[in-house]
């Protein structure tokens, strides 16, 4: 089972957190502090796994962003590594060559996508196509409701209001 998912930038800034096991706000900050201290300082070429408080944390770096997932001792680390990659590939497809900026400003969309991939700490869907279809179904409904300001001019108008 995955206990939490963290996205941390190389500077240690939090980009996304998702907790599947209960952690208080205080514990969360502590976890993030501890893990970013451990993971960001690890040299290249080392393994992508860290043992931590009796759990294992699998992490992978994409550009300047670290994707981390915390799992149980008996879980398969390589599988988790590929789940991370699966997530990134789906993000990439959704945003069209995703970059960190997309995730910074659209973190809530990243959450929606994550919710389609993982649920309750387990992988729920391993087909990229299915996930993409579901997410875009949600988006199109949203578009139909005309809730989303889609064009640049809209945004500008709103920003200068």
């Amino acid at each position, binding site marked *: 089972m995955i206990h939490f998912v963290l996205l941390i930038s190389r500077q240690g800034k939090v980009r996304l957190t998702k907790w599947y096991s209960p952690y208080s706000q205080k514990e969360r900050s502590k976890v993030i502090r501890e893990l970013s201290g451990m993971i960001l300082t690890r*040299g290249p070429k080392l393994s992508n796994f860290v043992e931590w408080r009796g759990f294992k944390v699998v992490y992978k770096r994409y*550009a300047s962003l670290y994707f981390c997932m915390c799992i149980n001792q008996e879980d398969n680390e390589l599988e988790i*590594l590929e789940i991370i990659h699966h997530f990134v590939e789906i993000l990439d497809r959704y945003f069209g*060559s995703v970059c960190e900026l997309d995730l910074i400003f659209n973190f809530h969309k990243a959450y929606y996508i994550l919710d389609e991939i993982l649920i309750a700490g387990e992988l729920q869907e391993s087909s990229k196509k299915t996930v993409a279809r579901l997410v*875009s179904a949600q988006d199109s409904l949203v578009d139909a409701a005309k809730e989303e300001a*889609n064009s640049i001019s809209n945004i500008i108008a709103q920003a200068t209001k």
Partner: protein
Amino acid sequence: MGSQGGFGQSKEFLDLVKSIGESRSKAEEDRIVLREIETLRRRITEPDIPKRKMKEYIIRLVYIEMLGHDASFGYIHAVKMTHDDSLLLKRTGYLAVTLFLNEDHDLIILIVNTIQKDLKSDNFLVVCAALNAVCKLINDETIPAVLQQVVELLYHPKEAVRKKAVMALHRFYQRSPSSVTHLVTNFRKKLCDNDPGVMGATLCPLFDLIMIDVNSHKDLVGSFVSILKQVAERRLPKSYDYHQTPAPFIQIKLLKILALLGSGDKQSSEQMYTIIGDIMRRSDTTSNIGNAILYECICCVSSIHPSPKLFGAAADAIAKLLKSDVHNLRYMGIDALGRLIRINPEVAEQHQLAVIDCLEDPDDTLKRKTFELLYKMTKSSNVEVIVDRMIEYMISINDNHYKTEIASRCVELAEQFAPSNRWFIQTMNKVFQHAGDLVNPKVAHNLMRLIAEGFGEDDDTADSQLRSSAVESYLRIMGEPKLPSTFLQVICWVLGEYGTADGKYSASYIGGKLCDVAEAHSSDDTVKAYAVTALMKVCSYEKAAGRKLDMLSECQSLIESLSASHSTDLQQRAYELKAIISLDGIAMENIMPLDASCEDIEVIDKSLSFLNSYVQKSLEEGAKPYLTEHERSRTRNISNFRNHDHHDASTHSLRFEAYEVPKPVISARLPPTASLTELAAVREQSYQREVHRSPSVGSLSDKGSQELRLRLDGVQKKWGRPTYSSAASPSTSDSESHTVNGTGKGKSFEPSSRRQPEVEIPEEKQKLAASLFGGTTSKSEKKQSGGGIKGSKATRSTADQTRATTAVVHPPVDLLDFGEPSGAASGSSSTVDPFKQLEGLVDTNQYSNVSKDPDLLSLYSDAASTSGQNQNQETGNLSHGSGNRTTKGPNLKDALGKDALVRQMGVTPATQNPNLFKDLLG
């Protein structure tokens, strides 16, 4: 597809994100967030907020919470938003509550109603959103409220809903198993769902159910095997393929289930052999996912009823993993080896060199995994080497969690396999010295008991030698600073009991030492109490032996000060000591008999029969009868109170029978006629020698190691500690030992000739490893500077690396905190405000690849000119050269588009901040 259209949030929010990105310190970030919290707190309570605006506030709350601040004031608004009719708002509401609330939050009760309503919705997206919330929020108490509905959703026409319903039930099972167990048939039915996604999801709850009760699911073995077969034969839709591997995540889950079902069941296991063998043959060992499956196969093979053929295949796969130079794979290899040796420990033999390599590896994770493997394969023949290694590592780390674990493992191994009591005591000393506060206090009692009881045989000489050597080592150690309390207690106790026993040390010397301890640890009452009691023992033995007792002045003053102590316990001990000293020798001998810690305590006559006549008499005289067992037992406890210590020790369990001694070894060295005492004497001598050496671990002398080796050889020794053979190895030439390596694997050595080469292999290996990996080792110790990463998928260019190091030196200043100054611009621009730069964009940012103009068209043309050459490079060469100032991932146009968009909105990512735009997938 997707939302390139825009960020959809107000300028205000974008500015917030931006300014947080800019902040240079955590404190600054906190200030910004606190200000935002104040703003939101005010705004969110205003009347008549447009829904759109409210949605954004909620997202801002999520952002605040994500950064580790408390946004609880807004939770209720998120809850309200879940009530909204519009899916967009509802979805935002659900997202926010699932992120905000833990399963025991009070507000959940307000959401249950909405969830119930939404689960009935005819829009499947609403149902999906509600099910997502169900998985996170529904707790033990609220399960009944939605259970029926969720079960019905298992048969919903949309597969997405069915899948989430299965996952929700799985979650319910984890929360409260009893609520779902009657639904097992539903899971079985869902296994045959025609959507592979639903089938895959069903494996999660089934795995858990099978874990609890294997037997009631044995009939499913055939189904699982046939599903796995179909998956492996690519019968699933192509969309489930992952990097050309057919549905690997489903395969892995199935293998996990088969491992459970086949465990200890020959018949079931036989059904699986073919398919597992097939999968192992097919798996693509060049990809990560292929190795993930392979690893799962090995786990499965090691769990089910063993098949020689599969075992061979698994061993081969492990050999491949261990030979890899990718750390991840070696790590998995070590782990897999740890599983396979449970079936047959001999597999490990051919990999000893690889394992030693991993043990020497600079990667801590790999090292720990290797220690775990060693822990699993410890025997009486290699315990010394392994525990030594473990202690050495334990000393070198700071992570208390792991330190505790490894310390307890050392203790466990030492207790189980110790070749001699002396070694045990020495090992315990080391563990206590370096991790004393972390080990279970039980261990201390065991150690005291061992010293007191000795070998457990009628060999008094050996026992007393053991004790005096313990005393000697403690006298040496106790002067060191920062000894943990538990260890000091052991030291005091042993010194009190046996400090003067062999006559080597005078009572006043020991007494002085004990006073030193008490004074040096004046804040620790327990240690002081132990010290005073020890002092009392020493004094009374002295007096009982008829010698004149002169109390040192420091002892006197210590006792005086303790008599006035705030701790009543210390006070009592001090007064007792004073009282006992004034008695004569014979009385003393009775009160404090010499070496009586192991004597049985006289059983008290529980019925107090000797009082019968008195009781009778009293009753006749009209006294109240003395009744109630409860009360009587209480008084008895009080009467036993003084002996509490002894009882205490006996409740802890430790193996006290003689330790397993590899006998043939000893006889190999000693003349066969050697009597037991002689044997002990020989050991004793060597021990004495060792004792004089420094206590630091790992610096065992040659003599000491000879002694150690003595007991090791003859027994099949698998894991020699390289340093032990220091005398022999440097002289051996490289080529010679290479051949030794080669033959070593063949295990064709006769026991007698075994000793030298066996010990040498690891030594040679270490040398080999040092020469092979030495360069990398030192490099990585220097830490991550330079050196590109080979990662094929992630775009980690060398330039990126060097930037990484510079970024550490100059704190990032640019906009969205990605400011690694690129190339030559770094020096000057790193201190300049990126926004100011922005204003004068055109002239300052000469290195920019990104547009300087909001006009999209000119942007592209501009970009084409500045980065044309870079693009060429990228297409030709995936790993960018170190001098390359490429600031973009390969997908330049997309990135430029995004950049332009951001600029138009007034958010200006600095140009020195290329990573922000870098495609995550290179």
